[in-house]
């Protein structure tokens, strides 16, 4: 009898190329069918995965050696040429990759199993960057696939990972099936996050999407599915009744919810106004409305996320202590805010983003802002946030989104800390100070030094209000008691999982 796990994922898989998109579901898909050279473990330490490495003493040459037995799903062995092509393509899309390429002298395959990466300047975070799981991990694809354009999605889905993608059964946005890759040779050792031995114990894993949260819960309780990646916290009481279901947290870090303002247009081009807005907000209110159950959220003033090595909560007192409406009012008065309406974009079709705008709008109104909350679907929002027009002409002033903590846990990858004006992330702050601090961070070669710089960035962010951290929350998963051996991980992985019949 075949063992099949049916899992309800947080979203439908539509983009199969994990390099072209930063969507989590595509990344998760990537980890199923591809493998990576290096992967961070649960202690944020890079560990060898496909390759071991050596670093030259001047810290300028990294030499990677592929381990034995690596094979693509079509039977071809994995060679260093495949790796080089994959890394090159990846670096065109990943911001961390771009930073490395800025200091890269050469990246070459010296023989079938060896890759040599030469730098012009030291880049202490290189291994962290290629071992990270967000936003775009450098998945290794065959050279013929990876040599294509980085702006066009690949059309062949062959990796060397523990699962094989079953193309015939793929229904975009609905379901995707993975079969165990029989020729996969797991690394020695216990699995830890993306590192360690990825041993597959079932024959098939099926990811399905259920647009209706209750349907998924009902299906889990009646044994029609085995696993729900994210359960809405409000619905947990439904599951508690069932003995066959376990609710647990797999990813202790969870998500950070944030607000981002537009630096290009009044009134948020004025630092005082930004500070006033931040002062009006209370993380507790946002989180209580969004999540409800305090077991699953955490007030957290650290922009790099609580529970991460760089965490520091300087400057977040008002946020974490319930907001300071009076202070906000005073600050707003000082700022010379003239009542310009604030265009606040509210997505209506993404459950995890509907509460923040509503709560924030109310708080800002209380502080004396004139808020024009505009509801729209998420697609309209993402299009509109790319617009640099004036708010009244189809632009915007503020919006909210969520990040997985590993996506923002250091200043190199956190998109909001980019201060390069028009080249920065939406909101386009022009902030030389933060750029200097980031350079300082790159240069920092010990964890202690890094932490020092990170604290400065935290303080700077809270003063400049590059973005507003609104707290952290976790999404519990639910599984049938038949599933055993799930490991903790921000990315839901299906190796080492077994299913009792």
């Amino acid at each position, binding site marked *: 009898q075949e063992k099949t796990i049916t899992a309800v994922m947080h979203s439908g898989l539509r983009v199969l190329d994990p390099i072209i998109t930063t969507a989590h579901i595509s990344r998760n898909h990537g980890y199923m069918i591809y493998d990576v050279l290096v992967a961070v473990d649960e202690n944020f330490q890079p560990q060898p995965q496909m390759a071991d490495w050596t670093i030259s003493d001047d810290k300028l040459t990294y030499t990677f050696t592929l381990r034995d037995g690596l094979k693509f799903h079509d039977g071809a062995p994995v060679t260093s040429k495949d790796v080089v092509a994959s890394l090159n393509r990846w670096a065109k899309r990943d911001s961390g990759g771009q930073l490395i390429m800025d200091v890269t002298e050469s990246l070459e395959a010296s023989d079938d199993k060896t890759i040599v990466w030469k730098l012009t300047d030291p880049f202490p975070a290189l291994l962290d960057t290629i071992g990270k799981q967000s936003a775009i991990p450098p998945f290794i694809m065959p050279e013929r696939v990876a040599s294509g354009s980085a702006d066009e999605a690949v059309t062949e889905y062959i990796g060397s990972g523990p699962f094989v993608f079953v193309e015939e059964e793929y229904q975009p946005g609905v379901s995707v099936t993975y079969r165990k890759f029989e020729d996969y040779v797991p690394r020695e050792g216990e699995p830890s996050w993306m590192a360690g031995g990825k041993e597959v114990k079932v024959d098939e894993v099926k990811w399905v999407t259920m647009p209706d949260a209750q349907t998924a819960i009902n299906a889990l309780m009646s044994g029609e599915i085995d696993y729900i990646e994210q359960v809405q916290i409000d619905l947990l009481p439904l599951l508690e009744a069932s003995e066959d279901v376990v609710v647990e947290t797999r990813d202790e870090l969870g998500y950070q919810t944030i607000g981002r303002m537009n630096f290009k247009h009044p009134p948020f081009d004025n630092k005082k106004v930004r500070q006033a807005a931040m002062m009006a907000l209370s993380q507790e209110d946002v989180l209580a409305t969004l999540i*409800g159950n305090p077991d699953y959220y955490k007030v957290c003033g650290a922009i790099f996320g609580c529970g991460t090595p760089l965490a520091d909560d300087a400057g977040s007192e008002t946020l974490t202590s319930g907001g300071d409406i009076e202070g906000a009012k005073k600050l707003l008065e000082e700022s010379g805010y003239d009542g310009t309406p604030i265009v606040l974009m509210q997505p209506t079709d993404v459950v995890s983003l509907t509460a923040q705008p*509503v709560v924030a709008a109310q708080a800002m109104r209380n502080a004396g802002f004139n808020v024009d909350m505009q509801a729209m679907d998420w697609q309209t929002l993402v299009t509109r946030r790319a617009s640099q027009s004036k708010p009244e002409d189809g632009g915007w002033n503020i919006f909210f989104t969520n990040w997985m903590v590993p996506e923002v846990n250091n200043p190199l990858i956190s998109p909001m800390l980019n201060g390069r004006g028009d080249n920065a992330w939406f909101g386009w702050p022009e902030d030389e100070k933060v750029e200097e601090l980031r350079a300082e961070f790159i240069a920092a070669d010990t964890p202690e030094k890094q932490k020092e710089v990170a604290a400065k960035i935290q303080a700077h962010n809270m003063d400049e209000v590059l973005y507003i951290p609104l707290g952290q929350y976790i999404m519990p998963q639910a599984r049938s008691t038949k599933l055993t051996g799930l490991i903790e991980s921000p990315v839901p992985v299906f190796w080492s999982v077994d299913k009792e019949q």
Partner: protein
Amino acid sequence: MAATPEPAARMQWLFGAVALPKSWRMGTGPMLAAIVLTIIVLAAIFAPLFVPHDPMEMNAIQRLKGPSETYPLGTDAYGRDLYSRVITGARVSLFIGVGAALVSVMIGLVIGLVSGFFRLADAIIMRIMDSLMAIPSILLAIALVALNGPSIWSVIFAITIPEIPRVVRLVRSVVLSVREEPYVEAAIALGSSMPKILWQHVMPNTLAPLTVQATYICASAILTEAILSFLGAGVSTEIPTWGNIMAEGRIYFQIKPSLIFWPGLMLSLCILSINLLGDTARDLLDPRLKKREG
């Protein structure tokens, strides 16, 4: 081609031909319906005067609570007062219903009259109407709402566009049959001009079926708004409507059914009353019917 029944005409006939129990027609039914509707409308208009809370005011600590003294029907997922929201929700829901009905009936009436009487315009108009009708209305609505943003007006607009062809077909079919009536021919013989005949002789005949159609549109607009909210393309969730109260409440259906029950009850009561009143109004509008019954 033989006379195939006009779908739209059938539609009106369908809803028109609902013979109500005698007792309802004359008295209790429509009376009750009128009372219910009046209460709902008055409640909606004067909601701010007596609902205990601002329907938009959130209280995160109090989310998803059961009925209590401060919150007569409990609270929703944002800690807002369900009672205040359901009562206030009538405003937008009824506005959308009535707005969609009025707009589509008025536009459809004019287009229908023109296309029923002028052969040349007819071919072109009917092709366009066929096309609009063939486009699935929910999809069109979603697309239109996405286009204009989820304001009340775009919801009305979205609901109206696909309804217009149905109204046009209905009006047109009435025009086609009425214009063969001897009294219209007599009016032609008496030298009345076309616009005058259209307006004075033909148009009044469309009123009865249009009333029924309008109540149908009104009812289905309120429902469509609910479905649009369900799909995340309705009116801004901040503003309460029965549709988005239910849409927001749907994921709590199993743990807090009252979030769907109360707005659903209001919606059903309203649609029921509107239907009843529509049927009654049709009877009142048609002197011939009066005679037959009397």
